[in-house]
């Protein structure tokens, strides 16, 4: 019985932890402007993140080392430093976006202006990183994030024309009001939102934090292969709600307040309560993960002592770097720049940086010196190579499309 509960907890946490501010905003924007015609990108992204989370977890369990530690050893300091710079900067952007998301969600719940919530949110993130045990942190935010299922519930309650929605999803076409360039730009954005780089660093470092060995791999595989696709379904539900309520009204999503209107429409104030809890939990959880990821990447590259399982006094540089990251995030948000805008840019830049973060994992997952007999099997490698091509294509097309479409406007 305890075993089953453990497995269930793992899956539920994976579902609840899947959605972050990038998914929330991008799926809502896409649903409100393109209907369901970009849902296939979510499917492609989910398969990709399953593949790479699986590989990075296997690397951590088989070698006992987290991803970034191995990147520098295996690829040398120059490639490692390039990787670190890109990953850290994008991570920093994502931390800023997530904290902004927490503040915006709290504003929706309280009508206190979001700028006042920003230091509160950042302080709360820091306190949890400082004191709360890793597994408790993961489980609580993951389970609370499950309340975002209300998007799927609201979609049912709205009684949409399912045939029409399915038709849009299965026979994708660019809507009349939009151009092909903006269609593909948002395809890349959606892909970057699903395949967030920080997920991979966090996953593998978390495996070391929790002391995974090979026998824990089965649990992690179930979490990933069941949890992430269901998380993907949540993302699609967010897009569906926007497509059913906002698209016909001619509303294009530009702020977080528009994202929740379909839920209120379908499920009233009760649904609203759930979605607000879910928003705060999902963005807060993601803020924790991205903050920790910035600490992990720096510490693992430079060989510092790291980990939440250590006393902060024994991982001083690790904790200091996270404090500085949060302070930078607060500073950027205090300039009044729109957090939703930061989010939209962060997902596209995540897509641009994807090759840098995934290629090293692919290389290491094939290296018998680290993996022993747990190297990638043939089918995994074939799939991984296909995805490498997709990732490279998305990364190269992103900046030209950003210029041509004016960042999707």
């Amino acid at each position: 019985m305890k075993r089953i509960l453990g497995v269930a907890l793992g899956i539920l946490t994976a579902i609840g932890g899947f959605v972050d501010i990038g998914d929330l905003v991008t799926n809502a924007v896409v649903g409100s402007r393109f209907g369901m015609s970009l849902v296939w990108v979510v499917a492609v992204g989910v398969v990709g993140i399953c593949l790479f989370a699986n590989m990075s977890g296997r690397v951590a369990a088989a070698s006992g080392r987290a991803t970034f530690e191995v990147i520098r050893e295996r690829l040398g300091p120059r490639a490692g430093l390039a990787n670190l710079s890109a990953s850290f900067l994008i991570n920093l952007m994502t931390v800023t976006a997530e904290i902004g998301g927490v503040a915006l969600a709290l504003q929706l719940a309280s009508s206190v202006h979001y700028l006042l919530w920003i230091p509160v949110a950042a302080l709360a993130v820091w306190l949890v990183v400082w004191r709360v045990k890793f597994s408790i942190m993961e489980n609580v935010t993951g389970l609370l994030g499950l309340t975002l299922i209300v998007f799927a519930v609201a979609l049912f309650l709205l009684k949409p024309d399912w045939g029409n929605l399915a038709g849009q999803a299965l026979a994708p076409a660019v809507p009349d009001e939009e151009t092909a360039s903006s269609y593909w730009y948002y395809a890349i954005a959606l892909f970057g939102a699903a395949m967030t780089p920080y997920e991979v660093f966090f996953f593998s470092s978390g495996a070391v934090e929790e002391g995974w060995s090979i026998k824990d791999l089965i649990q992690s595989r179930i979490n990933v292969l069941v949890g992430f696709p269901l998380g993907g379904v949540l993302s699609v539900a967010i897009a569906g709600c926007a497509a059913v309520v906002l698209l016909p009204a001619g509303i294009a999503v530009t702020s977080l307040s528009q994202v929740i209107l379909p839920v209120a429409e379908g499920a009233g104030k009760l649904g609203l309560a759930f979605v607000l809890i879910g928003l705060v939990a999902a963005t807060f959880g993601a803020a924790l993960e991205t903050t920790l990821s910035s600490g992990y990447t720096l510490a693992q590259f430079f060989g510092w002592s790291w980990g939440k399982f250590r006393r902060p006094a024994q991982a001083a540089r690790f904790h200091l770097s996270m404090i500085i990251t949060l302070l930078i995030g607060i500073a950027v948000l205090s300039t009044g720049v729109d957090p939703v805008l930061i989010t939209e840019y962060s997902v596209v830049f995540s897509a641009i940086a994807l090759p840098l973060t995934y290629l090293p994992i692919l290389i290491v997952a094939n290296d018998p010196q680290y993996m022993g007999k747990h190297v990638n099997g043939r089918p995994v490698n074939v799939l991984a190579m296909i995805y490498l091509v997709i990732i490279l294509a998305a990364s190269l097309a992103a900046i030209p499309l950003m210029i041509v479409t004016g960042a999707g406007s």
Partner: protein
Amino acid sequence: MKLVPVPPIAGRTLDAQLHLLDRQALDNDGVPVTTVDDLELSGPEPGTEIPEGTPAPVITALLTGPVLGTRIFGGRPPSSRLIRIPWKDVADVGVVIKLGVSGDSLDADWVERWIRDKIIARIPGGRHDPR
């Protein structure tokens, strides 16, 4: 010109670039100290003539810190500014490098200790064990 042959010594053959550089160094409690950024070798200066019969260079220390910058971009910091882990402190070389001494006694750990004493220990809960 001929170099003095390597004296026959029992032990393993290591590749310095593969097994030493960019490897994690752990102290005798298993706590990470740093990554090996560079190596200090005894022996003739590069660019000078090597006289016959010179003994082969020996690793005197693992280096860490700002020397990473010069390793990637070129150049060489002066000897007095290098942060060293003496080779005699190395206990084992494997997937990671295990040192035989505690991190507290090492120069290489001074940044960690400084940040710990000045910043982290001053924040409440800094010494709290999370387990």
